[in-house]
């Protein structure tokens, strides 16, 4: 298959970027989107040209390293991360635009690579349960109903890729923050720090420059881990609860 690529090129954070036109020829239909880019890059390298810098690692959709926007959609068409997009979902001769996540809090490092340390810092603010290695009671002492465990797992499945913020017109990180707050506030172990966690994570999110949710649901639509936007409602409730209950 042949494709006409328009790829964002930007040498470093300060450089002004531009779209470069690259032809991707003779691409097997079974190849994944990133394998298509691998092929393009290997050709560039062999022509002694600078390859397109993009991030990826596990290529199974779980590590969350992918950070590209394909034809305007963060993480590309279909469910899953960009690494789960296959060329057979395009038509031969298609033009494909590839650019990095556009979020102020995720500065562009090079080409399609952005820095998402803001998400780590939000977790550092409170996305944990304080415990002490070796001091835990036997795991069987706390019963957790299957329903609660399943709901917590649904939220905990977040891969931290940042597509939610990239899709949101407000660059809101509330799906990401809501997922962690929902996961931990459902677990009995998460109760002691429930209040402080919600307050600290929301503060951190604001400090990083992410916007607020105004119910576009774009985050839910692109989330590769299928996190439900209901976690944002939970986050709002947890935040209100934390501000009214001392």
């Amino acid at each position, binding site marked *: 298959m042949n494709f006409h690529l328009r790829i964002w090129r930007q040498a470093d954070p300060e450089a002004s970027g531009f779209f470069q036109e690259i032809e991707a020829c003779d691409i097997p239909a079974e190849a994944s989107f990133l394998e298509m880019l691998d092929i393009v890059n290997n050709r560039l390298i062999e022509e002694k040209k600078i390859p397109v810098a993009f991030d990826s690692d*596990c290529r199974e959709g779980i590590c969350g390293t992918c950070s590209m926007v394909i034809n305007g959609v963060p993480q590309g068409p279909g469910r899953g991360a960009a690494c789960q997009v296959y060329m057979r979902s395009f038509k031969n001769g298609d033009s494909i635009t590839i650019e990095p996540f556009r979020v102020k809090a995720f500065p562009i490092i090079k080409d399609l690579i952005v820095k998402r340390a803001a998400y780590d810092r939000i977790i550092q603010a409170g996305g944990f349960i304080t*415990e002490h290695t070796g001091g*835990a*009671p036997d795991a069987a002492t706390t019963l957790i109903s299957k329903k609660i465990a399943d709901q917590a797992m649904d939220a905990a499945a977040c891969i931290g890729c940042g597509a939610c913020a990239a899709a949101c017109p407000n660059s809101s990180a509330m799906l990401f923050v809501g997922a962690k707050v929902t996961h931990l506030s459902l677990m009995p*172990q998460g109760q002691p720090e429930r209040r402080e966690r919600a307050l600290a994570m929301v503060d951190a999110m604001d400090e990083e420059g992410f916007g607020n949710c105004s119910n576009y649901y774009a985050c839910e639509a692109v989330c590769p881990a299928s996190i439900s936007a209901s976690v944002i409602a939970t986050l709002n409730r947890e935040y209100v609860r934390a501000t009214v209950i001392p």
Partner: protein
Amino acid sequence: MTALDAKIPPGPLEEKWRRFKENVPLIGPANKRKFNIIVVGSGLAGASTAATLAEQGYHVDCFCFHDSPRRAHSIAAQGGINASKNYQNDGDSIWRLFYDTIKGGDFRSREANVYRLAEVSQSIIDQCVSQGVPFAREYGGQLANRSFGGAQVSRTFYARGQTGQQLLLGAYSSLNHEIKNGRVTMHTNSEMLDLVVVESHAKGIIVRNLISGEITRHAADAVILATGGYSNAYYLSTNARGCNATAVWRAYKRGALFANPCFTQIHPTCIPVGGDYQAKLTLMSESLRNDGRVWVPKKKGDQRAPQNIPEEERDYYLERKYPAYGNLAPRDISSRSAKEVCDEGRGVGPGGLGVYLDFQDAIERLGKETIQERYGNLFEMYENITGENAYTRPMRIFPALHYTMGGLWVDYHLMSNLPGLFVLGEANFSDHGANRLGASALMQGLADGYFVIPYTLGAYLSSQFGKKPKTTLLEFEEAEKRVRARLNSLLEVKGSLSSTHFHRELGILLWEKCGMERSARSLQEALHEIPKLRKRFWNEVSIPGSGASLNKALEAAGRVADFLELGELMCRDALMREESCGGHFRSEYQSADGEAVRNDELFSFVQSWQYQGEESEPTLIQEPLNYEFVHPSTRNYK
């Protein structure tokens, strides 16, 4: 060099770890903060180590090459984590987990290490639950367990098909807590490119910042490597693209011993190779074998669609050959059996390199809903990649490189022969012998990080007060010079082929000559070919750009250069081990019915290699394995 001392504590097996803990020197709370520890890697072993040591009061510098510690490849582990909790009342115990692990490893690991692993496995589950890991639960709220590859008890804890993700996020959250507390300094996008040895102790590392290209020196009282395995030497494996052996390989070249490099594991249930564009292979969790039945057509070259092949014309070869274990036969045995039927021309799918994993019976027995509940995300993943629906048509699977049991040699303290250098998780060789059982990698990574290193580190540090060197020392300067020189020589090749080209060639070579089946002949051929390939790499590789900023081609080429050396050591090791055991199957050493023939009389030892410089062959140092408590039997899963 004198014989290796594994420092195994004396006494009965059940008492060793307790006695060790009671007698090991302690570092007082006021002194811990005087020590600075380097942890390289932020997967299960690295993150759990960094978090736990920081919590105890040490200052930790943690390095990872990813943009965030949460991206380490532990995140992709699907199936589960073993623990000898016996919550199911099905006869499990520490002894059974120990025995299953040591037997599964084909009696090529240390009794004391494996027993300790089985012992601390229980605390891991407690620890993870207290962190809020959402393990699967029964309706009554109890923790759910399943049986997993090769086990006759249900001792595997899981979080859907994302156990690795949830365990890593647990460790990552603790790590983040310590970063916030200021006790861990996290260095992301940082790749270790050399180990610094001062007066024969490991005391620092040289790091390249992958964004700025800056090279920096870091000194510490001890260096802990938790950098994972080297499956990517084979190019195609289930490992993430970035997984590499650079940290352990550079440590080897500074004097750390590399143990059992030929012990590599091939996972039986991966999605088959599609074509040469392919960048990696995707694992389908082994848990699928709990309900799926493996088969191929009885007839060679049968091109019919699977649903058109009647029951009596199917060969459920694992059930036929291993009635007791059936589809749950250990990984090495399942993988080799798949290769056998494909070699016979009975493989399915493109190129005949695949076997069926069929859920029809399970769906009829349990209903589609139950199967969906158990494996929904895996079926989805399979459909996304192959475009086939596994609810109506059997999956096609084929073995792929998945895990490496070999790694840097460590003693009972998890310290290498270089004092001050500790190696944890998949990066060491210690617990899985010649074959790892399913759901045991997560267990080992977390055991090492949460429960072993916090005790054993003190034994070393108690003699190291005030010995942290300054980074202005000559040793640091020289190491930095070496790193810069190597990067420059890579950039100066200015050839015309990408490093992927050579990596793929190395992978094919290793897969064919040092893969599921090896022979003296194939290994000698590989030993002849690899140096030639390496030479071509150093003459023909193309790396556009410079080292002064982000350059993925430079990163990749540096890793391939190391794999090109490590691959040779793997073949050398495989050639020396004239027996078949676990993942190491030498075609010369098999029984009449094709089963592995182990040779305990001549090869019951750890085979460790010591680097002797570019021009010389490495020397072999053996650590005999003494079985005091179990009798090495022939593995029989029939």
